[in-house]
Structure formats: structure tokens, C-alpha cells
């Protein structure tokens, strides 16, 4: 029986700063053993417990898509001891990875539907994973129209700019970018995410909405979506919590009788309404 707390050993392949303030970096990891990578079979929206041996461990959503083979990526904001440690990593450093954990976005159930992806700020990482997965040649035909609405505070904070540029050039995906306040050189939308969603007015017909962002954005956006006749089953959310184990044992990520790590992190709005307001 394997010990579930032992991480796979990976090496940092590359580390890229994502924004002008330099507090968000994307770290690309390469597995030391090829077999471990095969075992690490994930879907977009899942997370992993990544650790710097000697510093500690933290749960981070996987930013890469399973269709990007060979490596996995995590986008990390500098917040605490472990995340600061990741920011100081260099190429070749050892990182422990346990996972993948959680349920992830229900990509199978989403097949045949139009998909609206709404993201705010740095919570875009698992959405990046999802969109790349959907746009992959093998999968694109299974899904309907894809709309991405992505909001940030200012232009310097927009993540994954090169990928967003690529998406804009494609005709099978609609990308709407917005920032909170006007800024020099910004040609896209200006305003909070909720009013922009209202302006874009995605149809709820045969569609699924995926929302990820700060709590206040989620709250206001959901209100707008309900105005636009979206049902609670069609709105998907990804939650986060303090976690230590990722496998439903350490006990701290429960909302009512559900654990975010094993029953989540993706919950539909309908499911969330059943649960106590403790997240």
C-alpha cells in the first residue's frame, strides 16, 4: 500500500513572471520519473498539493491542460512562506507534487453545450486549463460556442497575455477583456465583470457558465446571470479553502458535510445553495 502523503518528485523546468508587479509567477514542472507523469492523470479544474521539501506544502489549482503534454504548470501568487519559496525557485529545483485531487470541471457533462467562462484576477489559472482543453483539436468539435470574459484591476495584472492574444486571433472563441478603471493604451472593455457580463448577455440556452474569481465578483456576477435567466445547475463555481492533506483527512476544508478537497472544488450553484454559508 503506498503512503498517500509522499509526493512525486519533479524539477522546475521554467519559471515565468506573469504580471508587472511581479507577485504572480507560473512555474512549469517536469516529472523526474516518466511513470509518475502517467499516473498523474488529471482534468482541468483539479488541484495538486505542491511542496518545497523543508518549507511546506500548499494546494494550488493546475494551470496547464492535460492536452499540453510533458509538463504541468501552476500559477502562484506570492502570499505566504511556501508561495514565497516558489517565487525564489530556480530552474532545476526540486518540487514535490501530490495529486491530482478534487473533481475538476465536468468536461464530459459539458459536451455539446455552449460554454461561458467568466474569470476575475488571478483565479484565471484553472480557467486557462479549461479553455486550452476545450480549444484542443481533439475536443473542440464536442463543444458549442465558447465565450471568455476576463476582468482585472489594471492592464498590468492580466495573466497569460500571449495566450489571450492567440485566442483573440481564432474565430471559434469570443474573448472579452475588461479592466476596472480606464488606463492608457487599453482598447478593450472598461468596467467591473458583472456589468460587462450583462452587456455581453450570454444566452442561457443549452449552456454552462464557469465562474472563478474573488467572492465579491462571484456574488455580483451570479446576480446578473440570474437576471439573464440562468438556472443554478448551469452555473459552476470553484471554491478554495485552507487544506493540509488534499484527500479529505485533515478535516479543515469542510462546508457542512462536504469536503472541498474531495467533493469539490467545483460545485454548481444549485449544490452551494444546499450547503451552509461557511466558505
Amino acid at each position, binding site marked *: *500500500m*503506498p*503512503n*498517500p*502523503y*509522499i*509526493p512525486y*518528485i519533479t524539477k522546475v523546468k521554467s519559471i515565468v513572471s506573469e504580471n508587472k508587479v511581479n507577485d504572480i509567477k507560473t512555474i512549469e514542472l517536469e516529472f523526474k520519473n516518466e511513470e509518475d507523469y502517467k499516473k498523474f492523470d488529471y482534468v482541468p479544474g483539479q488541484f495538486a498539493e505542491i*511542496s518545497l*521539501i*523543508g*518549507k*511546506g*506544502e*500548499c494546494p494550488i489549482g493546475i494551470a496547464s491542460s492535460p492536452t499540453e503534454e510533458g509538463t504541468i504548470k501552476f500559477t502562484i501568487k506570492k*502570499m*505566504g512562506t511556501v*508561495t514565497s519559496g516558489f517565487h525564489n525557485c530556480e530552474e*532545476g*529545483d*526540486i518540487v*514535490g507534487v501530490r495529486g491530482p*485531487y478534487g473533481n475538476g470541471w465536468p468536461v464530459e457533462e459539458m459536451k455539446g453545450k455552449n460554454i461561458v467562462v467568466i474569470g476575475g484576477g488571478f483565479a484565471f489559472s484553472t480557467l486557462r486549463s479549461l479553455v486550452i482543453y476545450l480549444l484542443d483539436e481533439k475536443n473542440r468539435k464536442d463543444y458549442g460556442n465558447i465565450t471568455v470574459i476576463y476582468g482585472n484591476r489594471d492592464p498590468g495584472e492580466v495573466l497569460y497575455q500571449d495566450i489571450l492574444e492567440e485566442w483573440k486571433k481564432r474565430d471559434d472563441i469570443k474573448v472579452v477583456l475588461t479592466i476596472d478603471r480606464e488606463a492608457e493604451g487599453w482598447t478593450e472593455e472598461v468596467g467591473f465583470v458583472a456589468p460587462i457580463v450583462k452587456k455581453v448577455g450570454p444566452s442561457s440556452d443549452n449552456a454552462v457558465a464557469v465562474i472563478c474569481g474573488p*467572492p465579491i465578483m462571484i456574488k455580483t456576477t451570479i446576480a446578473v446571470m440570474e437576471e439573464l435567466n440562468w438556472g443554478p445547475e448551469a452555473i459552476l463555481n470553484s471554491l*478554495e*479553502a*485552507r487544506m*493540509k*492533506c488534499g*484527500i*479529505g*483527512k*485533515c*478535516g*479543515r*476544508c*469542510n*462546508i*457542512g*458535510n462536504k*469536503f472541498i478537497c*474531495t467533493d469539490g472544488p467545483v460545485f454548481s450553484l444549485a449544490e452551494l445553495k444546499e450547503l*451552509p454559508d*461557511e*466558505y
Partner: protein
Amino acid sequence: MDQKILKKDQIGKLYNELVGEYDFYAPINKKGNIAFEKIENPEDIVLDYLNSKIPPKSVLFPQNEVLFEYTLDEKDVEITDRQDLEQKILIFGIRPCDAYSFELFANFFSFHGDWKDDIYLKKKENTTLIGIGCNTPRTTCFCTSVNGNPFKKDNMDVFLTDLGDTYLVEGISDKGKGMVQKLSWLSDASKDDLKKAEELAKIAEESITTKIDVDTVVKNLETCFEHPVWDEISESCIGCGSCAYFCPTCTCFDVIDETDHYNNRGRRIRIWDTCQSCLYTLETSGHNPRDTKIQRCRNRIMHKFSYYPTNYDLLGCVGCGRCVYVCPANNDLRVILDKINKIEEKEDEKVVA
């Protein structure tokens, strides 16, 4: 015959026979606190005790447990798995409520599909329990209300009954029966002994007077999440978490890395944690889902009497009463459950009024 007699002065003999094969854990008196520890000298064993202060969960789920060890090199890390999980463990003199708590642990740690806690489960598999009936339950005990009994033998391998000068020894599981047979020097029990054991069991069960209507608690908890009763319940709590530390069924833990800089080595360990600590759920962003004492107290009760039954169809409490007598503010669990039980009545009164 499965029933044997062990004389009180033969415990040393029993210990000597078993200690070669097993890590022998038994209750000892540690500065006035009964705790289960690895026995070096059989004379330390205390069997004449009410119940251990520190629950025997500390044997299989110690307060600090190494998950794995590592050595750090310039650019490389080597991880060493636990090597000691195959060691056979024997827990001697455990009470029925605590033995039942091991079942709850095993159930919880093997839940969640693929993600089993194999460290615990492996140890549990290699553990033999020699339990002892509870002749004099405390007044704070309420095991009979939560599917228990001071002489419940289900979760034991071997069961002892204190008959005064001797112990009646019964093999319960196959493992236990085998063990009793191997101890061929035990004398056979007489009919009188069996009769006396039965009487003791009856007296003990009758002496537990605290009765809690747990079904109503479980039912009421389904609807009372926002009820003002929680304000009242958490009023005197000082938020220390003794209740969780001394609870035989509390499983929550924290994980930390400890590094020895001198020798470039370290270990990742888990330590007991408690949902009564405000840091328990504090996220790095500063957001805390359970920010107030009211929410934290509620979580503890809900976890044991609502989430546990919903998820596993079991109660998360074995009725040992430890949280009742260790609580510094005397925030008595029996009173809390009683308050929850009365919720419905109060609402009925309102309707009448």
C-alpha cells in the same frame, strides 16, 4: 473453551510472553494522568483506572507522527517512506468506548475512494486489542446512548473482565481466540466466574444514568444551523481545544516540515489540530470561513452529530465523557446536546403562544 482466568499477579508473565512479538502498549500513570504508553516495565501497568485521560488514539495516531523523512542535497531530495508500519502492536487494557473509536477512525481514514490513509490503516491492521470491561463507569459517561456499552466486546480481540482478584479472559475475534489458546498456562474459567462477569456487566450498564436522545439531536441538527442556540452554547467556551485533543474520535491534523540544518535532513510530520483554533481555517488571503467562536463550536457539534451520521451513517461520538471533564470552562457536552434537543419544544411553545 474460550474463557480463561488470568490472576492479577500474572500480568508480568503475560507481558513477558507477548513483548517479544508486539510493541506492548498499556495504561500507565504519568504524573496523575493515565495515558497509553509503550511499556518497559510491566509493573507500571495500571489496570485499576476509570478511563485514561489521554485517549488511546495516541498509540495509532500519535500527537506527532512522521509521514516521511527526507534528506536534502544541493539540488536533490531523497524521500524515505515509513519503515516501521509492519511492527505488530498490542494495546492492553483498553476500554470498550475507546476500542470503538478505533473503528470510527478506520472508517473515516478508509473513506473517500482512492485516498485512503494507509499509514493509519496499516497500523490498525497490525494491532491486537486486549480490552477490559468498565466496572465503574464515570457519571459523565453516556456510551449507552451512542450505541455503546461498558462491556461491549465487538471491537476487541481479547476481552478481560475484572472479577476482583482475577481477570476473566475471553477470546473474541479469531485473532484473539488464537492468542488465548497460545497462552496455555491460563486456567479455565468456572461457571461462577462467568456468572459473576455477567452480573458485573449488568451492574455497570445500569450505573450509567446519563441518557441522551441522540436521534432527536441528529434530527434537530439538520435544521438548526442558523439557530440562536449556538450563541448560548459558545458563550462560556474559551476556545482552547482541549475537547478535541482529548477526544478519542477527533482526527483532524496539521502538517508541518521540520528540518535539521546540521545534517541536511528533515521530516514531514502531522500533529493534532483542533477546529476550535481560529487559525484552523484561516486562509493565506486573510479570509476565514469560520471566524467566530460561535461557528467553531457549532462545527464541532455538527461534525460529530450531523455530518458524521450523514456521511457514514455512524455517530462521531463514543460517549466517553472526556470532553465533559477536561473542559476548563465546564461547557458540558451533555448540556449542549440537551439544549439542542429542546429546540423543537421551544418552537412549539412559540406557536402556541
